[in-house]
């Protein structure tokens, strides 16, 4: 079993009279790629800054290898950060930026230059030693920032929306590279992003946050397939969210029909919310389905069509490769495993 490296215990943080963290508890394991995911202002960056030591929590504990560190200054922590806008030192060249931490530790010059060279090779910037950092492209600056952090061999690398300032194509490429680097160096990455696709494709574990609270912690598949509440379901991917209630275990009722499902553990007749992912829905002839409706809109999206179907109760969003003309009456088909039942939560 992997070891716990960082434990956050009931962290709160107030700025003036605003509470930005409302009790965050989280375990971060060795060699894990963990992503803090949430909309802007949800407290994910504040959580990262508390781990880095730039902010002190108003209350709660930060344990590193079991030792409380929330009062330890950043320069004494075994973590390094990749900043959102890279924060490279403009007065130093590429090699000196990367060597900054090693120079402070008074490492021997020959060792430094070897390590810098190795880092540059890893991030694909060999031969860039003497370049001026201010003249590099965004992607290159990002690589220097990663090298500058990793050369210190931290136990944890913190990344604060590191790809936010890059254009879409380079971002995709950097996602793959970051994942590769993480496997190569074998340390924990804590990654902050508001981009759900980024979170799902890179992480071992995703922490979904909103309004200073953790909504769900799980693997990307768990988060996507088994969202715990309406916020997670609507923030990650598209979804049809329908109010209903559990008749009993494995039987849920919504839109006046009863459906078999794979969920249990709710109270009988408990009010719940049901998630139907658009890509899990199929269109069939009306007589083969319980829920029927009329096609109101169809959009070609490349891989699939996005069809808006109006039923008696609501509008359904369906992603399917089948075509149906606007105005056609059709049925919606889905199986028990496509139904995801969640606890009902307050209004959003």
């Amino acid at each position: 079993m992997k070891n716990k490296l960082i434990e956050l215990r009931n962290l709160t943080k107030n700025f003036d009279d605003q509470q930005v963290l409302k009790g965050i508890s989280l375990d971060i394991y060795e060699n894990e790629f963990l992503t803090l995911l949430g909309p802007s202002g949800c407290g994910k960056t504040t959580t990262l800054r508390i781990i880095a030591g730039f902010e002190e929590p108003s209350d709660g504990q930060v344990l590193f290898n079991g030792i409380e560190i929330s009062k330890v200054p950043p320069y004494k922590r075994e973590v390094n950060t990749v900043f959102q806008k890279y924060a490279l030192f403009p007065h130093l060249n590429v090699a000196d930026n990367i060597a900054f931490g090693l120079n402070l530790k008074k490492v021997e010059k020959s060792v430094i230059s070897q390590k810098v060279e190795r880092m540059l090779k890893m991030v694909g910037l060999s031969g860039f030693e003497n370049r001026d950092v201010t003249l590099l492209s965004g992607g290159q600056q990002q690589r220097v920032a990663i090298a500058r952090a990793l050369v210190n061999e931290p136990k944890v690398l913190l990344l604060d929306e590191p790809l936010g300032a890059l254009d879409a194509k380079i971002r995709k490429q950097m996602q793959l590279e970051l994942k590769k680097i993480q496997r190569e160096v074998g340390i924990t990455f804590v990654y902050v992003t508001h981009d759900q696709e980024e979170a799902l494709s890179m992480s071992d574990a995703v922490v979904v946050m909103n309004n200073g609270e953790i909504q769900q912690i799980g693997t990307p598949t768990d988060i996507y397939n088994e969202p715990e509440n309406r916020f997670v379901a609507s923030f990650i991917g598209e979804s049809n969210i329908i109010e209903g209630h559990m008749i009993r275990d494995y039987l849920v009722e919504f839109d006046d029909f009863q459906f078999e499902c794979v969920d249990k553990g709710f109270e009988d007749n408990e009010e719940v919310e049901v998630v139907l992912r658009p890509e899990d829905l199929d269109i069939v002839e009306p007589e083969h389905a319980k829920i029927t409706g009329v096609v109101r809109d169809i959009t070609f999206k490349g891989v699939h069509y996005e069809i808006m179907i109006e039923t008696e109760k609501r509008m359904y969003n369906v992603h399917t490769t089948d075509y149906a003309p606007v105005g056609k009456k059709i049925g919606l088909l889905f199986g028990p495993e496509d139904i995801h039942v969640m606890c009902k939560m307050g209004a959003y």
Partner: protein
Amino acid sequence: MKQYRHLIRPYLIWSLVLVVIPLFLIVFYAFTEEGNEVLTFSFTWKNFARFLEATYLNVILKSFWLGFITTAICLLLGYPLAYFISRFSEKAQDTLILLVTIPMWINMLLRTYAWMNLLSDNGIINQLLGRLNLGPVSMMYTDFSVLVGLVCNFMPFMIIPIHTSLCKMDKSLLEAAMDLGANRVQTFWKVTWKLSMPGVVNGVMMVFLLAVSSFVIPKLLGGGQYMLIGNLIESQFISVGDWNFGSAISMILAVIILISMRLMQKMDKLQQEE
């Protein structure tokens, strides 16, 4: 923008008449002396040679020494103040910078007279010291009074460029340095100080230039016998009436200042490359 370009012409004429022509006249006077009836002037090195006399060399040494001390004090006091101001919120910074510049709104002569009143043998400071049985201390017409005048007058020229360069600095760089293992002192010397160098160089140059060539402040606060290069030039033009010698000193001063500025820039570059 292009259609406004002709608007620069009045300014060009203005600076030609008031800056370029006088400069040529100074060069002309410096290399000439009064001639005979046929030719009213003749070329000579005499004015420059005269400057090598010990009296005059002492004057220039003293001027540069005083300029150096003034600059050093302005830097030592001004840098912490600029740093301190840059840590405030933007609104508070505007107010604080305004406070720094307010003295400059008042005429320099007036400010200097005010210092004379404060520092004189029966001025406010000596009256206070007298009440405390510590005084009176004679402060006027000494190096001290001249330095006080110079430092107070030129301090804003040090603070403002340093403050500007500190403000321009990305604060996340400080966090990056701390993150990489630099404590507060190391962060200051390795990042803040290095990045504020352009401001420091500008401030040092301005204050040094102003201090070396000033003549009103040393005259008023240092008394008649306090001779700096600015006073020397002034007296050559105004009381002695030897325009040729005065021009030569002006030229020498300008050349020495130019050389020291170049050295300063070179040193700054070398430090950046380290």
